[in-house]
C-alpha cells in the first residue's frame, strides 16, 4: 500500500490517495478522509449485513487495541486476519492503540509500558506485547505503539517522558516490523508524541520519521480522547499542529485522532492533515442527534444538528434531511426515529448512525472537492456559521433553564 499525493508541490491543503492496496488492487482511497470508528471490532450498531446494504465501497476501519485486546489469544489460533474475524472482511483495517471515542484515563505509567484500560481492567503493555498482538491481528495498516498521554496542560516532565517512551517503542516496533513476515505488507504509521512543546515534538519527529518503512504519522498526544475533544477550540492545537506539519516530511500521510468537530476538522485539513476518524459520529448518535449541517450556502434557519428526542419531531413525517440519499432518510421519518429513541429501541441509534456516518462521509467528499476547486475557505465559513449558531442556541437554552 502506498500513500501518493496529488501534485508535487509543498502546498496545503492537500489531496492524496492510498493506492496499490494488496487486497484491493484497483482501489484508491482518497484523502482527506475519515476511518470508520469501531469498538470491539464492530462499527457501533452496524452489522456486516447492514454495512453491505449501506456501503458499496471498501473502507478503512480503525481497530483500537484497547477494545480488542481480549482477542489476542484467539487471533493467534484464528486462520485469518482481524477484518475477517470481526465480520468486515471487505474493509481494510488500521490498528490504533487508544480509543478516540473514550476518555483515556491519564497517569498510571510504568517504565517501558503504557496502561491500556481494557474491558477486564488495566493492562500494562510494552512494545513487544503490542507487536505480538499486531502480528496476531495482521492488519492492513497500524500505528507503532506510542505514549500519547499528554494534552494542552501537561507538565514538561510528562511531555519529555512521553517522547522518551514513544521513541523507545518506535525502535522496538521498527525492529519487530522488519523481522515480521506477516506484517511485511502492512502500512506503517509512526506516532509523534510531545504534547504542546515544539522542542519535544521536533525531537520526536527527528527520531521516528526517518525510516522508509514509515509511510505515515499519527500526531498523538494532543488530547486524552473521549467526548471532550468535540469542544476543543481550534486555537488550542493550532500552533503546535502548524509547527509539526511544517517540520514533517511532506510525503508521509498525516493522521489526527479524536472526536473533533467539523469546524476544527476543516481547519486541520487546511493545515495539511489527511486522515481523521468517525468517532465524532458516534458521539452525536449516542446523544440521539443527527448531523444536519449543510455544505452549501445556507439560510440562517439551517440547523447544524437536531436532537431526535425533542417532542417537536413526534409528528414530523419528513426525513432527517429532505434530499439525503442515506438509507435512514430514504426510508424513515423523524417521527419514527423520535419514537424509537424515546422508547429506547435499538433501531433508533442504528438509523441515526447510518445517517450520521453517511453525512460525515459526504462532508469529506465535499472537503476534497473544495480543495480541488480552491473553495475550502468558503466551506469552512458555511460550516462554522452553522456550528456557531448551534453553540449559541445551546448556551441560550442552558441559560434559560
Amino acid at each position, binding site marked *: 500500500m502506498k500513500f501518493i499525493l496529488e501534485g508535487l508541490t509543498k502546498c496545503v491543503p492537500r489531496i492524496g490517495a492510498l493506492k496499490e492496496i494488496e487486497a484491493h488492487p484497483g482501489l484508491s482511497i482518497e484523502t482527506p478522509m475519515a476511518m470508520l470508528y469501531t469498538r470491539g471490532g464492530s462499527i457501533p450498531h452496524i*452489522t456486516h449485513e447492514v454495512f453491505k446494504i449501506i456501503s458499496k465501497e471498501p473502507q478503512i476501519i480503525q481497530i483500537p487495541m484497547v477494545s480488542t485486546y481480549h482477542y489476542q489469544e484467539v487471533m493467534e489460533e*484464528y486462520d485469518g486476519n482481524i477484518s475477517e474475524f470481526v465480520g468486515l472482511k471487505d474493509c481494510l483495517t488500521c490498528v490504533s492503540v487508544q480509543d478516540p471515542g473514550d476518555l483515556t484515563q491519564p497517569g498510571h505509567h510504568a517504565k517501558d509500558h503504557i496502561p491500556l484500560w481494557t474491558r477486564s481492567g488495566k493492562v500494562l503493555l510494552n512494545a513487544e506485547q503490542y507487536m505480538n498482538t499486531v502480528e496476531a491481528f495482521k492488519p492492513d495498516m497500524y500505528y507503532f505503539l506510542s505514549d500519547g498521554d499528554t494534552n494542552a496542560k501537561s507538565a514538561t516532565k510528562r511531555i519529555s517522558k512521553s517522547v522518551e517512551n514513544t521513541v523507545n517503542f518506535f525502535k522496538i516496533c521498527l525492529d519487530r516490523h522488519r523481522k515480521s513476515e506477516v506484517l511485511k505488507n502492512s502500512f506503517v504509521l509512526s506516532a509523534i508524541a510531545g504534547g504542546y512543546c515544539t522542542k519535544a515534538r521536533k525531537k520526536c519527529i527527528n527520531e521516528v520519521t526517518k525510516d522508509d518503512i514509515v509511510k505515515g504519522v499519527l500526531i498523538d498526544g494532543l488530547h486524552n480522547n473521549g467526548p471532550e475533544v468535540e469542544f476543543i477550540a481550534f486555537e488550542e492545537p493550532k500552533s503546535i499542529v502548524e509547527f509539526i506539519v511544517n517540520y514533517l516530511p511532506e510525503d508521509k500521510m498525516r493522521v489526527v485522532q479524536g472526536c473533533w468537530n467539523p469546524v476544527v476538522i476543516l481547519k486541520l485539513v487546511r493545515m495539511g492533515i489527511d486522515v481523521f476518524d468517525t468517532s465524532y459520529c458516534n458521539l452525536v448518535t449516542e446523544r440521539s442527534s443527527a448531523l444536519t449541517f449543510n455544505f452549501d450556502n445556507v439560510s440562517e434557519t439551517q440547523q447544524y444538528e437536531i436532537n431526535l428526542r425533542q417532542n417537536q419531531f413526534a*409528528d414530523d413525517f419528513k426525513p432527517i434531511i429532505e434530499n439525503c440519499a442515506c*438509507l435512514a432518510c430514504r426510508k424513515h421519518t423523524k417521527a419514527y426515529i423520535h*419514537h424509537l429513541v424515546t422508547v429506547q429501541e435499538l*433501531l433508533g441509534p442504528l438509523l441515526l448512525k447510518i445517517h450520521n456516518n453517511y453525512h460525515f462521509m459526504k462532508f469529506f467528499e465535499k472537503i476534497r472537492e473544495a480543495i480541488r476547486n480552491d473553495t475550502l475557505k468558503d466551506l469552512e465559513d458555511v460550516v462554522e456559521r452553522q456550528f456557531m449558531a448551534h453553540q449559541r442556541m445551546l448556551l441560550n437554552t442552558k441559560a434559560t433553564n
Partner: protein
Amino acid sequence: MSALKKLVNTTKMVTEKCPLVFNVLAECETTKARVGKMCLPHSDVDTPVFMPVGTQGTLKGLLPDQIDSLGLQIMLSNTYHLGTRPGPEILEKAGGLHNFMNWHGSLLTDSGGFQMVSLLKLAEINEEGVKFQSLNDQKSEVMLTPEHSIHIQNAIGADIIMQLDDVIKTTSPDKDRIEVSVHRTTRWLDRCIKAHKNPNTQNIFPIVQGTLYPDLRELSAKDHVRRDVRGFAIGGLSGGESKDDFWKMVHLSTGLLPKDKPRYLMGVGFAMDLVVCSALGVDMFDCVFPTRTARFGCALTMTGQLNLRQKNYKKDFRPIDENCTCSTCKTYTRAYLHGIVTVQTVACHLLSVHNVAFQMRLMKTIRDSITNGTFPEFVQKYFLNLFPEKDYPKWIVDALNAVNIKLL
C-alpha cells in the same frame, strides 16, 4: 407413512369486502397438521407461521430490508405499548403502523389487555373493562375498554387485530370466576365487533378462553364460532400451567374450531411447542422468546440452545449453525460473537437475525414436510435429534400419541 391428501384448491381472493382469505393447501394424513395460505391486505402468509414480536413498531433493531430477506411475512406488535407511545393520534397521522415503520408485510396486534394485567400491578377487571393505574400519573386510574382497545388497534391498522378478553391467570382454580370470564369475553367480543371501524381492511379474531376447564373452553369456542369472524385465537394458555394441561387444551381447542379458518395459539414459540402444536392443528404462533433471548447471548439451533457467553466458545471458529444460511452464520464465528455478546449492541442484532431465521426455517421445514406427506417422519427425527437418549418428556409423547405419532 402417509399418503398426501391434496385438497381441491378453490383459491379465493382477497377482495375489498374480505380482508382475509384462508385456503388449506395440504393436510397431514396422520396428524391434525395442515399447510395453508392466508391472504391478508398487506401480504400472503404461509401457515403454520411463527410471528416474531416487534413490540414497539420495530423488530429488535432490524431494518425493514433485513426483515424482508429473512422471509418474514407477518409480525406482531403490542397495542398497550403503541397506544402509550407513539399513541393513536400519531399513528393515525402517519397513516397507520405499516407506514410509520415502513413495513410492507402483514401485522397482527394483541388487544393490550394481557399486557396490562401482566405489567401493571393494580389491574382490576369489571364488566366495563380493565382498570389500571396510569404509569405516568400515580393518582389517576385509566380504563381499557373493548371499545378503547379497538380504537387503538384501528389506529395501528394491523391486518389482524384481537378482541379484548377477560384475562384470568391460567392456573386459577376459581371455576366460577373463569365461567364469568368466558361469558364476559364473548360479550366483549360483540362490543369489539361493534366498535370496529375498519372491517374491510382489518380482521378481528375472537379469543377462546376457559383456561384449563374443557367444558368452559367448549362453551367459549361454540359461542365464538357463531360470530361472523375469519379466524380464532386460542388464549388463556402458556401461563404457567403444566405441559400436560397445555397440550390437552390445545388439542381440544383445535378440535372445536372450524377447519376452514386459521387458528392462532397466543404466546407460544419454543421450537418443541411449535412442532407439537403444529401437529395438533395450530396455524399461527407468536412469542418474544427468540428475540428476547438474543439479547442475553442465546442462539437457537435444531439441537437446542447455545449460550454464547460461555467460555467454551472463546476459540470456536464455527458459525452458530453450519446449516443456517442467515447473514450472521455466513459471516461471524462463535468466537467473535462470544467476544461481543452483552457488550456491543451489534451482538444483539446478529443473534436476533439468527434466531428469527431459525424460527422461519423450522416453520418452513414443518410446512414442507406436511406438503410432502413426511410430517410424521420429520417429527420423529426432530425429537430423536433433540433427545438422542430417547428420554422424551412425557407430555410430548402423549401429545403426539394423541395425533397418531409414536416417537422412535
